[in-house]
């Protein structure tokens, strides 16, 4: 959508914008459905590891929909993807730190 940010106001992309609006509505309905699914699954009282996996999986799907369609990441420029790739690599390292800490003692005692 960044392709549209300058010249779309001339009218050539009016049809494109109409298509995007339909996508926004579809994504909204999908997000509502996934929210209901998230709450419904939590009421089943699954085992903690499975509950965490399922809840995070649904959250990742919802987050991806927001990022791809509302934040227009599905059609962005390469530089934005490069910035995000770097961010994601640091984010993964950050999330790995507590996990590594947790398993640190486990491996020592084996």
């Amino acid at each position, binding site marked *: 959508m*960044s392709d*549209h*940010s*300058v010249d*779309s*106001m001339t009218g050539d*992309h*009016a049809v494109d*914008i109409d298509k*995007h*609006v339909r996508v*926004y*509505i579809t*994504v*909204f309905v999908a*997000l*509502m459905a996934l*929210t209901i699914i*998230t*709450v419904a699954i*939590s009421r089943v009282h699954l085992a*903690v590891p499975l*509950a*965490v996996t399922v*809840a*995070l999986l*649904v*959250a990742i799907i*919802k*987050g991806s929909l*927001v*990022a791809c369609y*509302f*934040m227009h990441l599905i059609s962005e*420029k*390469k*530089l*934005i993807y490069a*910035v*995000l790739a*770097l*961010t994601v690599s*640091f*984010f993964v390292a*950050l*999330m790995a*730190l*507590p*996990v590594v*800490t*947790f398993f640190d003692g486990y491996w020592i005692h084996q």
Partner: protein
Amino acid sequence: MDIPYTVELRRDTGLNNGKIGIWLFLASEVMLFGALFASYILIRVGAPTWPRGDTFLDVPLATLNTIVLIASSVTMVMAWASLMRRRFGTFRIYMGGTILLGLVFLVVKYFEYSHHIHLGELPSTNNFLAIYFTLTGLHGLHVVGGMAVNAYFWGPGSKLWKTNPVWFTNRVEHSGLFWHFVDLVWIFLFPTLYLL
């Protein structure tokens, strides 16, 4: 002196500078919330027992807030789409809706917080409440910040539409990126704190 590349695209990046700026800022925000999520994981896996979120927190209210925030993301993107269609009146309706939904989110959060405080459930009570207040408090501040910027574009900042509509549209898009990020953070906070 005019700020360069607010409307025209840089040849080397193919982007206006505002968009690069907001994405770099969002990258720093990912690390800020990432550090707090990592702290949450560390505290949780290190605790001998951990309460389910719904033993302390109100899931129906949080579900309502999730719906409110997702709806506000839709109105935000529709506000931008209205500008792309050159419909300024529609933009103001959608942007006004986004601000109002943000306000609804904060009011619901106020009721949640005041209920906890009334029961004596404070950040000092236990680790769960400490991380709950820290994460939702920081997120709430982001909602307030996003609302302030959106209110500016709805009100006095909208004068730019008359003189430079493309620049104004770009600015609304950038403010929208921040607002969607705030929504995205809540999408992860909701199951993490309330449902697990």
